[in-house]
């Protein structure tokens, strides 16, 4: 059906999912026909197990982890749930510290733990650039550190692209003996990641955000850290995660992670250049556009190279998205779709934006196959699109 065959689009939503890299596609294809349960004892099973373990070693090496620290999951959301719930259940403390700008894969589990398991959740404030306020974390830790089960702080914000002060936050938590989890789903391939050099105890990653397949991810977790499993039934992954290993997916995932890490040093500056070109082009067409996140003066270390989050005053983000979509330019409002209804971004609200600004925003996110032609298409479209969305915004305000 024609509706299912992708047309030629300018895909600027890589933070949602990024195309698989050829090496990962080749790897996945080459494994799909193989028989073998990695838990079986015969030759086919041993072959499957060997592939999983080689993938584990490849992935661990790419991220500075030990192979035994890699727990494969069905994606980033499961990894986040395993870390947050698994740590809470394994430890005595009732308090969970996390930030107001987390992904829903962390916010919803902690909220669930608060409602069903007696957790006391403290959503630490973020500042107007989207960064965790370390003073608030320090104050929360100082109040009875023994009662804190875990601290979870994302590494790169998925909506705005703000790089969190993760190392400093982790040091504060560790000074009180509090284990640290980080959602690094948007980090791999964009920032250098070396678990050996990083004071975190658990780190979530996802296949489809790095050029691997959807439906596979991992929690990298220190051997000495106890986690209560979410899924029981076989204990395949270190007894922390059960379920038959997705051999082909895991192999392709590891290839993609390796690929992303190896190309990072050359890709990051390219993405920055394209992103800056995008922001400059949009600013020329729409002078009152606001770039959200860290100010340019904060330097490149403060923001992810591939994300530009912009507020278009007077426009409805949903209208902008629809109009750009009609022209083949694909981006995101950055807002979660709660119960099918678009909600204003909780990240922008936590950064102090009002409801109107939060609803007037778009996220453009670039990735490994982004080109100047994609940027040019977005820049060419944005002026008329904003003008039209603005008049629709006015129409919505005027009452009959």
């Amino acid at each position, binding site marked *: *059906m024609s509706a299912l065959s992708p047309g030629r689009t300018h895909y600027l939503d890589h933070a949602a999912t990024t195309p698989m890299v050829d090496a990962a596609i080749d790897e996945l294809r080459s494994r799909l026909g193989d028989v073998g349960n990695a838990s079986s004892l015969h030759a086919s099973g041993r072959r499957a197990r060997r592939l999983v373990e080689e993938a584990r070693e490849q992935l661990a090496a790419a991220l500075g982890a030990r192979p035994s620290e890699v727990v494969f999951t069905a994606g980033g959301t499961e990894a986040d749930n395993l870390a947050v719930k698994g740590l809470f259940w394994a430890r005595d403390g009732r308090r969970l510290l996390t930030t107001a700008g987390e992904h829903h894969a962390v916010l919803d589990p902690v909220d669930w733990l608060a409602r069903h398991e007696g957790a006391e959740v403290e959503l630490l404030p973020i500042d107007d650039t989207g960064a965790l306020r370390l003073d608030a974390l320090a104050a929360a830790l100082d109040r009875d550190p023994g009662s804190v089960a875990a601290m979870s702080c994302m590494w790169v914000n998925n909506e705005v692209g703000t790089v969190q002060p993760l190392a400093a936050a982790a040091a504060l938590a560790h000074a009180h003996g509090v284990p640290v989890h980080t959602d690094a789903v948007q980090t791999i391939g964009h920032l250098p990641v070396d678990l050996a050099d990083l004071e975190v105890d658990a780190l979530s990653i996802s296949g489809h955000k790095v050029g691997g397949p959807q439906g596979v991810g991992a929690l990298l977790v220190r051997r000495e850290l106890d986690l209560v499993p979410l899924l029981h039934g076989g204990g395949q992954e270190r007894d922390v995660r059960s379920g038959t290993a997705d051999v082909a997916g895991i192999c392709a995932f590891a290839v993609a992670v390796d690929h992303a890490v190896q190309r990072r040093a050359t890709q990051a500056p390219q993405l920055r250049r394209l992103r800056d070109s995008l922001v400059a082009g949009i600013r020329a067409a729409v002078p009152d556009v606001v770039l959200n996140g860290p100010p340019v003066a904060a330097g490149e270390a403060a923001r992810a190279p591939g994300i530009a989050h912009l507020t278009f005053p007077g426009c409805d983000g949903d209208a902008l998205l629809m109009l750009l979509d009609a022209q083949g330019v694909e981006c995101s409002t950055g807002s979660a*779709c709660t*119960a*099918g*209804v678009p909600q204003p971004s909780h990240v922008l609200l936590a950064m102090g934006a009002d409801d109107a600004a939060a609803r007037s925003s778009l996220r453009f996110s670039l990735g490994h196959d982004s080109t100047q032609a994609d940027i040019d298409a977005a820049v060419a479209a944005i002026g008329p699109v904003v003008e*039209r969305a603005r008049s629709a915004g006015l*129409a*919505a305000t*005027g009452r*009959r």
Partner: protein
Amino acid sequence: MRVLAAMSGGVDSAVAAARAVDAGHDVTGIHLALSRRPQSYRTGGRGCCTIEDAGDARRAADVLGIPFYVWDLSERFHTDVVEDFVEEYRAGRTPNPCLRCNEKIKFAAVLDRALALGFDAVATGHYAQVVDGPAGRELHRAVDSAKDQSYVLGVLTAEQLAHALFPLGDTAKAQVRAEAADRGLALADKPDSHDVCFIADGDTAGFLRARLGERPGDVVDESGERLGGHDGSYAYTIGQRRRLRIGAPAADGHPRYVLNIEPVSGTVTVGPHAGLAVDCLDAVAARWCGPPPDAAGGSLTCTVQLRAHGEPVPARLAMADEPGAVQLHLDSPAHGIAPGQAAVVYLGTLVVGSATIARTHRAVSV
């Protein structure tokens, strides 16, 4: 034309969108999210604003191969339809929220936004017909009189009609269902929606009690004698016979009906069926679907429909002095007509316009 198809997740709006595609239009599907807490509205096949309904609409758009989005109209809907509904009951009137939704949401908020975004028209699954007449576009009843929804569209102005598409107006409902099945739309056998979509359990009195509180008042007969009490006059509507909570029957043994609701005191007056008969209606806020009717001769001979599935009643329409005010003289008395209801004026199948009933007069000498 670039057409925005409002898709509720029901069979009618899906087939309407399909027909707009077949007609060669460039169609985009939208589902209107009318509550930010969709579970608070009706669930299953009975509503128009649940997550399941949004999913059904999305799947229909997939089958049609058209883009699909959810538009959040929850604030406008809450203000213009839900609050209006509650306020009308507070004032002792009986509103029609579907009519208000068409007037304020589908053919105002949505249409305005659609036009501003570059669309030419909004298509819905309403059963009504728009035809080109000598003086512009005309709104007519649907061919399927059992499904005709021109009553709830009687609030549309000529300008709104100029941008409205009702692709189902020439077809019977049974055929629409069959067509949906033929087109491979999974919602072909989904039940029709009924009642007020934003009252989850169908308990209108409970919904109003939660918002208006208990407002005790008296139930009296036509002479003013107290027969009983109630917790809120909003639980009553003109013409109601059941649940009057007055215990003993009338002296003559005949059933009694709600004849009048006095909103300030909350007094509910009951009496015999004959007391419901009215033949003169004062109505306000008239809206014309085309040029204002020519009542130069003093009045216009027409028919008027007084409730969503009511029969058309022969009548004469006269313009009153105040702007937007009209008087309707019914040829024979009608019963159970409540202020707040819409009177929709027809010439044959043509919808002339509508007005909101403000006062009714008893047929004293018919």
